[in-house]
């Protein structure tokens, strides 16, 4: 129990550090995780299988995985496919959300067709998570 509490505190510490990052994407990841901290399960988490990295999770909630970009989102559709379909990254088949305030409309359509929900504001995200 105490160990679990320590892990939780460390997780929240990492989130707080991220909100102070100079990198806009890291800062955005931190803001999202902080806003949704009650449902937060993992943050900036490397996933390894037999010593090999298979990928990283930006923000994982009880109910979804969130991929974050502060940029234009080019080539994010493939990344979303990995999060949706790779069982090491997403063992329970959680839905994937693309959070990208600057992703343009044509790309939003492609991301939605690939099975992701695309969210562009923190309020929208909060409403999605419920």
């Amino acid at each position: 129990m105490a160990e679990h509490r320590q892990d939780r505190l460390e997780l929240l510490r990492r989130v707080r550090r991220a909100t102070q990052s100079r990198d806009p994407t890291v800062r955005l990841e931190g803001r999202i995780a902080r806003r949704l901290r009650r449902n937060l399960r993992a943050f900036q988490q490397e996933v390894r299988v037999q010593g090999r990295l298979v990928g990283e999770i930006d923000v994982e909630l009880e109910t979804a995985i969130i991929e974050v970009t502060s940029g234009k989102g080019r080539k994010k559709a493939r990344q979303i496919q990995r999060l949706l379909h790779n069982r090491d990254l997403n063992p329970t088949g959680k839905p994937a959300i693309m959070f990208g305030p600057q992703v343009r409309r044509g790309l939003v359509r492609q991301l939605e067709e690939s099975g992701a929900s695309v969210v562009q504001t923190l309020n929208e995200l909060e409403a999605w998570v419920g």
Partner: protein
Amino acid sequence: MKNIVVVTPKKVTQTMVQALVESLGGYWNADDTLDQGVVERGDAVIYVSSSQALDPDYDTNDIAILIQLLGQMPQAVIDIHLGHAPGSEALAEEVAHEVIERWGGFLDDNTQDLETVLRQGKAKKP
């Protein structure tokens, strides 16, 4: 995760990217649901893959600008996703420059307005 891309004037296949990744000491996750290379250096990590598709990541106007920047129709996009660990950004830049050295190309940090880049004449040609 942050990602940067290199748009190349040459057709660069996944096999070619795999060779690059392995020459840098990395490995390839061949599983269909991943299909990407990983380069780790100390704590730093990047994930690399390529595709031939420009649309819809780049619209018609973007592609016209890329043709001007590259001097020909783009043939491939190398995607470099940055890990969260310290040093990943520097590693990504190093690998992007290695890509440009091998195959030519234009480095798009996924935040730039291509018209501005064109005006400033920052094209990186082979």
